[in-house]
């Protein structure tokens, strides 16, 4: 523990003390207020022979703890805050570079009716994020905050213009390292215009549009690539662009229950490690139309992504978190564990997807709806790769050759491989005052090799059927019991799974749950494991404490379409969160 860390910890404690007194006594200054939050997740790992975890694989790394505390102070139009983070060390599955203690996030801002100005660290999203999105997700250990300055102007009603510049967070890397070409400078401007508000149009149709321009400036770049011609290998030093820009435009129209949204982004040539150093420009198009009225909703969406990875470091790997933009998947984000065994994440190097979603609530007091009604959701997503045609270079045809345009791709042509398909039907029904349930059927096709980036043929394409039921019984005003069962059937990957969960809650503070996920269909009999878990928790207002013991299967954990790999582990976990 060095002096700096110790000082930071003490400073944090002092601020928490001040925060407490200030908020309890209505502020040191008139109208000042302090608020904050705290979250800590700790895990103690034990050996588990069946899971292949032994003392030697653990190698002394039996403990992990992630802690974050945030404090915000506001007085009048001013606001300042900071976040303290400690990974001592990080939980398994988090990037090892996360290890450390410090204050990675702090800011000061001023805002009134016409302006918001921030200096320090900030988060932002332009449109759907095709050009820029800086955000944080604690459970994923993801944080690509920008440190610099951001100004938003609202000069006239319905007009919002944002400008920003800065460097993205790169774990604990010093921002001084930027001088060593550690990552590039991100700058952007975005305009958002609401036509109805600008022209004071009092009509049912609402129209707004916007556009953004984002650039990355990175110097000190160097890359040599090899070409193979007639059995001889030649080396070329690439002429790399120091500036890469993305421009995006969007439009949003709504008329009562009807809605339409479209966004298009274009990125100029951006050879990078992620796209194998090709010079092809990138494009993304997203269109969605929807109609809804009380009790009914339908949404259709289409998307094409072609070479749209945009990172603030040319040779960044997928796990470097230096993403400037974000393109979320269209597919449904499943609520239950087994359908989430095969989650889809957007393929930035190329995908075409379609989605349809229909929601209907059968009214109360009808034959099918019963006394309380019943809601039905039908959802379908299909994703293909894009068609890539080879290009000619010195009389040789090639695809994705570093230093070339890479490939050509007709805009409306679909590739040969179905990457993902998800057809699901969910019925939610309240049977009586005491009983209610959720029932789902899901059919998944998941090209594990292409989606997760394995070599082709390693795992193959998974076809899986999932059925699940989640039934709640409200015993009385204080006690309730929930039972969840899920079944996944597949001949590929790890075979069939079955799960059973019981959760008992005693209002208003306590809950306990017992669950088991059983991989009974694994071809390898030694891997037919029970992933059991016992947990209990206490909730008091905005404070929540959970303690659990059990096994965690390896797989992908996804929040909002962004995923991280979680390794298999057995042990005790403690989680605490609070806010004030």
């Amino acid at each position, binding site marked *: 523990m060095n002096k700096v860390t110790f000082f930071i910890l003490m400073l944090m404690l002092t601020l928490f003390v001040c925060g*407490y007194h200030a908020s309890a006594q209505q502020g040191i200054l008139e109208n000042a207020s302090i*608020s904050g939050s705290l979250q800590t997740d700790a895990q103690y790992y034990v050996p588990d022979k069946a899971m292949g975890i032994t003392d030697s694989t653990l190698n002394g790394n039996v403990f992990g703890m992630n802690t974050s505390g945030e404090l915000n102070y506001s007085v009048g139009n001013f606001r300042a805050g900071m976040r303290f983070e400690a990974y001592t060390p990080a939980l398994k599955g988090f990037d090892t570079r996360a290890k450390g203690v410090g204050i990675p996030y702090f800011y000061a801002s001023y805002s009134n009716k016409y302006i918001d100005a921030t200096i320090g660290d900030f988060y932002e999203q332009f449109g759907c994020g095709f050009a820029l999105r800086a955000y944080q997700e604690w459970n994923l250990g993801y944080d690509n905050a920008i440190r610099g300055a951001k100004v938003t102007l609202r000069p006239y009603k319905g007009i919002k213009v944002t400008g920003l510049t800065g460097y993205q967070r790169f774990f604990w890397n010093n921002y001084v390292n930027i001088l060593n070409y550690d990552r590039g400078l991100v700058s952007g401007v975005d305009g958002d215009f609401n036509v109805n508000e600008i022209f004071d149009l009092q009509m049912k149709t609402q129209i707004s549009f916007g556009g953004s321009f984002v650039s990355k400036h990175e110097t000190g770049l160097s890359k040599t690539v090899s070409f193979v011609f007639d059995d001889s290998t030649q080396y070329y030093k690439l002429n790399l662009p120091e500036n890469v820009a993305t421009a995006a435009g969007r439009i949003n129209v709504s008329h009562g229950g009807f809605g339409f949204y479209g966004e298009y982004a274009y990125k100029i040539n951006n050879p990078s490690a992620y796209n194998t150093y090709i010079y092809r420009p990138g494009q993304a198009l997203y269109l969605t139309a929807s109609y809804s009225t009380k009790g009914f909703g339908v949404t259709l969406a289409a998307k094409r992504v072609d070479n749209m990875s945009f990172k603030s470091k040319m040779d960044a790997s997928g796990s470097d978190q230096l993403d400037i933009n974000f393109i979320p998947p269209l597919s449904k984000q499943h609520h239950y564990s087994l359908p989430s065994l095969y989650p889809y994440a957007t393929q930035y190097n190329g995908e075409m997807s379609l989605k349809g979603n229909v929601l209907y609530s059968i009214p109360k007091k009808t034959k099918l709806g019963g006394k309380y009604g019943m809601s039905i959701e039908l959802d379908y997503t299909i994703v293909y790769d894009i068609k890539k045609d080879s290009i000619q270079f010195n009389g040789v045809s090639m695809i994705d050759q570093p230093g070339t345009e890479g490939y050509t791709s007709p805009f409306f042509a679909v590739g040969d491989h179905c990457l993902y398909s998800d057809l699901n039907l969910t019925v939610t029904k309240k049977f009586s005052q005491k009983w209610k349930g959720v029932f789902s059927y899901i059919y998944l096709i998941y090209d594990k090799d292409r989606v997760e980036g394995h070599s082709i043929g390693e795992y193959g394409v998974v076809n899986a059927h999932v059925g699940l039921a989640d039934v709640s019984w409200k015993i009385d005003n204080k006690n309730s019991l929930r039972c969840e069962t899920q079944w996944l059937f597949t001949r590929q990957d790890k075979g069939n799974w079955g799960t059973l969960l019981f959760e008992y809650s005693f209002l208003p503070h306590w809950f306990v749950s017992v669950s088991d996920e059983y991989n009974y269909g694994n071809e390898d009999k030694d891997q037919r494991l029970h992933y059991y878990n016992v947990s209990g928790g206490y909730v008091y207002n905005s404070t929540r404490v959970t303690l659990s013991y059990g096994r965690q299967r390896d797989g992908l954990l996804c929040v909002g379409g962004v995923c991280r790999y979680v390794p298999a582990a057995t042990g005790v976990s403690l989680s605490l969160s609070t806010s004030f």
Partner: protein
Amino acid sequence: MKKIVLTLVAVFCASMLANSQVVSAQTSSSDTNTGKKVPSVTLKTVDGKSFNTADLENGGKPIIVSFWALWCKNCIKELTAINDVYADWQEETGVTLYAVSIDDAQRNANVKSFANSKGWDYEILLDSNQDFKRAMNVGNIPHTFVLNGKGEIVWQHTSYMDGAENELFEVVKKVAKGQSVKQ
């Protein structure tokens, strides 16, 4: 090891402070609830109109602000359970519920469609950049706040268990009558 111990000490102290604040607020609360003002953040409605959170207002009646997302199972369970009794709650206390979606902007159309199809009579707000979530110090969702007639935060709660909406309604009833909410 030293680091771990110190971090644990810091975490423990901080959480004690957070809780002791709760206790002291309980002992010092008078007949009228006072709390923090809601920070000013500009959000969007599902129709694309701007909405400033400093304008959260319900004619002196209580307000519930509930953070949710399409991927959050318990949020949807909570909002569905409240919706079954929402008309009764409104009649008795005049409460209005603002359901703030933190889904990414690409799912805005799905949010509108989902809320509409469920027949939710709430005011749906879109916090795509999660500015309001951060300003309100919300970590995990569901996270629910109760505001008094002056728009001040007097109660908050995280997570949802079946039947917990009854506790929320008890709070809303007290706030509507101007009674203190013990937290």
